[in-house]
């Protein structure tokens, strides 16, 4: 990587252009000037090559999945197949207006319908709406469904959502956005639900329980059937956060476990690119009694073909149109490249990879949870912490060796969390290289701890002064000048 330190605005030269637009010979329009902007937006003036070279240089300051191993726990950083990108952007998809008559978009509607059905089959839920734009948006949709369900039953007291302390931050944040009060319960030492703690808070104000399964420590909720029973007995609904669904692909269905609602992160389990933070996609699925509440629209089929159904009791619209269509197309292609013959191998291979890394390194790292993990696991820092090397240092040192860091300091239930998720796409050779580098870093931590504590050394920039950025926020080019 080279340290390219130029902003596009710093390349600007008055009069230079990077566009080619026809000016039609039709009359100019003049509008009342008090409705128009006083000065032009100060955008860069650069040539097309300037733009291309600039963003190529900028791109090279990033680490992507194709650069190397990306063991970011809970993020499921798989290979994003090229064919998915190619087929999802065919002109017959890319150039379609969202408000075209249904008979002119039957191909797209068929894909929606089939993807809804495939997600139903994979998760064991009755029906899906693809609308939510991301995992957190799916959570919000699911929570709205929970609220709509209780409202329809005129059960207005139910305003509390129970969430284990091992959950992703989006869970409690989504509950707040949906107007619920969050009740956080303390987990067992392995991050699973503490049944006694759960029983203690279940009552006639319980709207539902949000659960990630396997949880953020990669552990399956062994008591899930009992959890489901007592939550439902208390009148609550059970929400499945699909962030970790990858572990279960081929092995188990959330619907069979008693979950009423799920969201699925297509950008995790179904390999759509993370895009540096989005776009994602978080289709929301429900059991039979909740189908009427799904966000509008849901694609259905009748004798005339596919159509968009707007249900009366739906929670309503969650976006201008129908979610991130270009993301669904990729997920659809991805599922078909596996088909029923191979899809069921995803979970098993992901789980094998995670266990292999864990068991190859557990002699050197604190392993807070014994036994087999599922798709990911957590180390709680080094076994030998005598030299003061922390999880953050280990993560930064990994960057020096050409690996992305694991997720660090999450889940919050361990103080030195280092959460590793290899996914099913990595070969034994890649995992062996990673294991060897991890062992080398441990050795460095004990012999030359300063080297690790001051890492990274080989990246284009080194540790950043984050406090400075927050103290005097510089959030646009003009703030620099």
């Amino acid at each position, binding site marked *: 990587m080279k340290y390219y330190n130029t902003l596009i605005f710093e390349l600007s030269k008055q009069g230079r252009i990077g566009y080619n637009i026809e000016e039609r010979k039709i009359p100019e329009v003049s509008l009342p000037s008090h409705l128009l902007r006083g000065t032009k937006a100060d955008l860069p003036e650069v040539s097309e090559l300037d733009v291309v070279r600039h963003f190529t240089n900028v791109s090279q*300051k*990033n680490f992507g999945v194709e650069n190397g191993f990306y063991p970011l726990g809970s993020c499921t950083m798989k290979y994003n197949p090229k064919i998915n990108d190619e087929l999802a952007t065919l002109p017959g998809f890319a150039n379609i207006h969202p408000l075209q008559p249904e008979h*002119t978009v039957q191909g797209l509607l068929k894909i929606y319908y089939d993807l809804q059905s495939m997600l139903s089959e994979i998760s064991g839920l009755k029906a899906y709406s693809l609308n939510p734009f991301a995992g957190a948006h799916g959570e919000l949709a699911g929570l709205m469904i929970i609220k709509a369900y209780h409202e329809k039953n005129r059960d207005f007291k139910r305003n509390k959502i129970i969430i284990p302390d091992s959950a992703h931050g989006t869970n409690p944040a989504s509950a707040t956005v949906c107007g619920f009060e969050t009740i956080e319960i303390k987990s067992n030492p392995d991050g699973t639900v503490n049944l006694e703690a759960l029983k203690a808070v279940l009552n006639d104000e319980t709207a539902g329980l949000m659960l990630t399964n396997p949880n953020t420590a990669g552990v399956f909720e062994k008591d899930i059937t009992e959890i489901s029973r007592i939550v439902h007995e208390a009148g609550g609904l059970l929400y499945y956060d699909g962030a970790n669904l990858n572990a279960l692909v081929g092995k188990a269905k959330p619907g069979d476990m008693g979950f009423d609602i799920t969201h699925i992160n297509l950008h995790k389990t179904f390999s759509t*690119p993370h895009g540096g*933070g989005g776009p994602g996609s978080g289709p929301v699925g429900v059991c039979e009694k909740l189908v009427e509440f799904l966000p509008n629209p849901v694609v259905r089929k009748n004798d005339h073909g596919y159509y968009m159904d707007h249900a009366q009791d739906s*929670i309503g619209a969650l976006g201008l149109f129908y979610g991130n269509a270009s993301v669904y197309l990729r997920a659809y292609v991805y599922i078909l490249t596996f088909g029923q013959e191979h899809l069921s191998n995803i979970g098993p291979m992901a789980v*094998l990879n995670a266990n292999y890394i864990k068991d190859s390194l557990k002699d050197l790292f604190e392993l807070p949870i014994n036994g087999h993990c599922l798709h990911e696991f957590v180390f709680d820092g080094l076994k030998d912490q005598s030299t003061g090397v922390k999880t953050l240092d280990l993560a930064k040192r990994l960057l020096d060796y050409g690996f992305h860091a694991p997720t660090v300091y999450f889940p919050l239930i361990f103080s030195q969390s280092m959460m590793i998720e290899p996914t099913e796409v990595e070969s034994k050779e890649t995992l062996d290289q990673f294991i060897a580098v991890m062992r080398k870093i441990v050795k460095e931590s004990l012999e030359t701890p300063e080297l690790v504590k001051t890492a990274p050394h080989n990246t284009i920039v080194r540790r950043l002064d984050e406090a400075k950025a927050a103290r005097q926020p510089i959030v646009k080019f003009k703030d620099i000048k």
Partner: protein
Amino acid sequence: MHKYLPHTREDIEAMLKVTGASTVDDLFSSIPKKLRLTKPYNIPHQLSDEALTKHMKNLANQNQELIIFRGAGAYDHYTPSIVKAIISRQEFLTSYTPYQPEVAQGTLQYIFEYQTMVCELTGMDVSNASMYDGATATAEAMFMAHAQTDLDTILVSETMNPRTIDVIKTYAHYRNLKVIVVPMKNGQTDLEAVTHLIAGKMGLIVQNPNYFGIIEDLHGYSDVIHQAGGLFIINSEGQALSLVKSQGEYDADIACGDLQSLGLPLSFGGAYLGYLATKMKYVRKMPGRICGVTTDVDGKRAFVLTLQAREQHIRRAKANSNICSNQSLMALAVTVYLSAMGKEGLVKVANESMKGAHYLYTKLLQTKKFDILFNQPFFKEFVLKAKFDVNAFEQACLAKGILGPLHLGEGKLLFAVTEKRTIEEMDQLVELVVNLV
């Protein structure tokens, strides 16, 4: 074997040995037996790359690519080839949220450039790194106003896109907030009605240009709203901001809207992106990621996510919003597009769109088959009331490969014209009107 699953049988055996399990199944012993699947999914068979390509092309062919005179929130503007080329680079496409800034300077830098461009367009102090779309960005703006004022009712102009209003209502309902739609007057938001209603409300949301394409005159609003203690929120789509008075110039508190019109394909409604920008004094109420500048230990300029104590991964239930994934790659597309168009090109695109819309408007009126509904200044969209069967017109358009205007009910037709529509295409549409029986 499968091309995305690399393990050979020997690999699996060697790895199992390390784990102490005798089969891969044994690794799943924590899942109760009765919950474990015993048969493959009932999904289609695997398709080879060739078969899959044929299958997808066949499905793509079942969607009609049309000559588009429809907008209503999604616009058929031209996109230079470089946009797709740049956003297809795997360094951008496949990377995660930039939580490890030393190896994510690429993402962070373009976010910073994107924020700068959004601030330029809107005249605001600070932008976040993107929202899902224009409607959800507007709903989040409502939450900001709620957090700032602690009041629970928002005013929304009737001239907004009804789809945006629907989303605002969904978000408001579940957060126990109330939405009052302010009736319009001759196609514009009614300042008198706003003045009458604003007391005790968290603020007003208007769209400019509005749903009917009309460029609203928003002078006087900020005084009325600010005197009442509310926030002024203006939703504008990106392309329009190159011409119409910006949110900053109207002294609005929050700027929001959709940026699909700046270089993103129509793609059946997504992925697009919303933007959200505000005055610095409200930054701590803002949702989403914000990128800032700092230095590394060697004093080099670098970019980093900042002011994160607003966000869900730190604040959990007390966060400003639940947003985590945003539409980052789309923000990159917009940044590349705006770089290529630049200061002059962007204005040209908007001007050509506006010229086309006015050309078509004049020609359509000359057919004498329409009534003028609103006599107001407009940008690239306009509404005319048809004196003919609008369904027959839509069918006649489709038969010629044209996506005609959107029918708003009662014969009101919402037309959109971008710089991509040629004079011939516009004349053809007019011809279809003339030939209607």
